[in-house]
């Protein structure tokens, strides 16, 4: 039997050619075109120049909208982390049957349309919605609160929509944690809180980072929820891009802010991934 030099489980890179060609043509080229279009001064796309970027960095509105959007992402991610961590923690301590049911409940929203999920929040947060009806019924308030079209309402709606994205990586990580470590910690005299703080959370850091990355990316691009629950008085990047491109037909400006948005997202993702790699090292020592 002649020795084979190559691994039989590896296939020729040529199999990847169709998709690579597809991506070059329909993914990379449009993005390059986006860069080119953004380097024009007028809406008719005929005069070259950097006026769009001057406008973005000089005028300040675009940067403010970007900052607002990123901050929204942070707020939602933190809330999601609190909720998702507890849910994942409860999951790993449940019986297999409960786990099956829980998994269905967690995964299903990912397969349901975001319009459907957001629509529910319009019902929940409205002046005549459940939250207000309950609070009025219990006489905690005497006038309905403005929850819809408010930042708090938007944060809760987004946290709900993105919760599965945060919970799933956390479940994976927590499941890999050796329960021996927690028992050992307890046997050595640490109370539950200390064990949680010093052992469980740090060792689950890779999951926290992974979940945060997914939640953050999804939140800041959540166009539908931001628009239906946020309303017209809170402008975030996705709607800003859509308004400029579609209603105002200002393609160079829309392209420029899209690219600034893209770079910001890549920056945040890179930062989180870097933290993820650091934490992996930390978690396994």
């Amino acid at each position, binding site marked *: 039997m002649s020795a084979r030099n190559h691994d039989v489980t590896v296939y020729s890179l040529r199999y990847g050619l169709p998709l690579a060609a597809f991506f070059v043509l329909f993914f990379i080229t449009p993005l390059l075109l986006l860069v080119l279009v953004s380097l024009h001064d007028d809406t008719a796309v005929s005069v070259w120049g950097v006026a769009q970027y001057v406008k973005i960095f000089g005028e300040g509105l675009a940067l403010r909208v970007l900052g607002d959007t990123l901050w929204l992402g942070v707020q939602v991610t933190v809330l999601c982390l609190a909720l*998702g961590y507890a849910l994942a923690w409860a999951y790993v301590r449940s019986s297999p049957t409960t786990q099956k049911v829980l998994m269905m409940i967690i995964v299903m929203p990912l397969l349901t349309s975001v319009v459907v999920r957001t629509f529910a929040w319009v019902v929940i947060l409205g002046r*005549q919605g459940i939250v207000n009806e309950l609070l009025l019924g219990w006489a905690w308030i005497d006038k309905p609160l403005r929850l819809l079209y408010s930042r708090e309402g938007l944060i809760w709606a987004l946290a709900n929509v993105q919760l599965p994205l945060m919970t799933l990586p956390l479940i994976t990580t927590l499941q890999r944690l050796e329960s021996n470590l927690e028992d050992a910690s307890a046997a050595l005299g640490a109370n539950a809180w200390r064990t949680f703080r010093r052992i469980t959370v740090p060792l689950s850091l890779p999951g926290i980072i992974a979940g945060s990355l997914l939640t953050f990316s999804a939140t800041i691009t959540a166009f539908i929820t931001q628009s239906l629950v946020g309303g017209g008085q809170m402008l975030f990047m996705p709607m800003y891009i859509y308004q400029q491109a579609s209603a105002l037909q200002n393609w160079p400006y829309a392209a420029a802010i899209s690219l600034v948005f893209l770079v910001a997202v890549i920056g945040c993702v890179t930062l989180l991934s870097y933290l993820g790699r650091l934490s992996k090292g930390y978690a396994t020592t």
Partner: protein
Amino acid sequence: MSMGRRNDLSDIALKGTLYLVAWAALILLLAPTLIVLIVSFTDSYSLRFPPQGFSTRWYVALLKAFTLHFAAWNSFLVASMTTLLCVVMGTAASLAIARSTSKTARCLDALFMSPLILPGLAFGLSALIFFSELGVPVSMTTLVIGHTVVCVPYVIRTTSSALMQLPPALLESAASLGASRAHALRRITLPLIAPGIAAGAFIAFMSSFDNTAVSLFLRDARTDMLPIRMWQDLESKLDVTIAALSSVLVIVTLVMMVVMEKLTGISRRIRG
């Protein structure tokens, strides 16, 4: 030294808090869907919860909502074509890069997965500008192309994961018994990773059907997409028919998910 737990109070406090928050999270996940299901049976035009009266009138209205049917049919067609393209090209790409350690393979992997992280809106806008500059009008074809780019990562992810779990021993023994690579591919690899491909195809289909970021830019009235139609209807009027439609979509998704779970253990594969 005492073995076993000390400080039961802090133990209970911690566990109690965590379970409480977990329950809150669970309710947060379930409540919206249940609310939509219940509200869809209201007999009035308002979205008050709980509804003051019950009727199936909105489901009847749904049967007559031809614009919604049209959009749903378009979404279905586009999702089907997208899934087909994704499975064909994505599986081939997975075979090439899943177990390879070469630099090119890693680069390609990053490239193919990048649509998952990048804002879909930016890509949608770039695709619109691209087709417009080429003089290609918006159509089902451009929609399918746009959707394929953003949905193929799901197929690659589940297929690569299935490939990675394939025991190399199987292929090595097939090779040592004289099977050609094509034969091994057809008879061993593909059947074994078929559940992974199927799971990826399912996720890609749902992702395309529910896609908003790309459809927003690449669709017009003649190629209306259901999520966009629903969003625009919700924005300009409070149509309870949308609640009925949402319920139908939720039930259908639930049924499909149970089926896929039995066939491919999909919840495991979504976790990646």
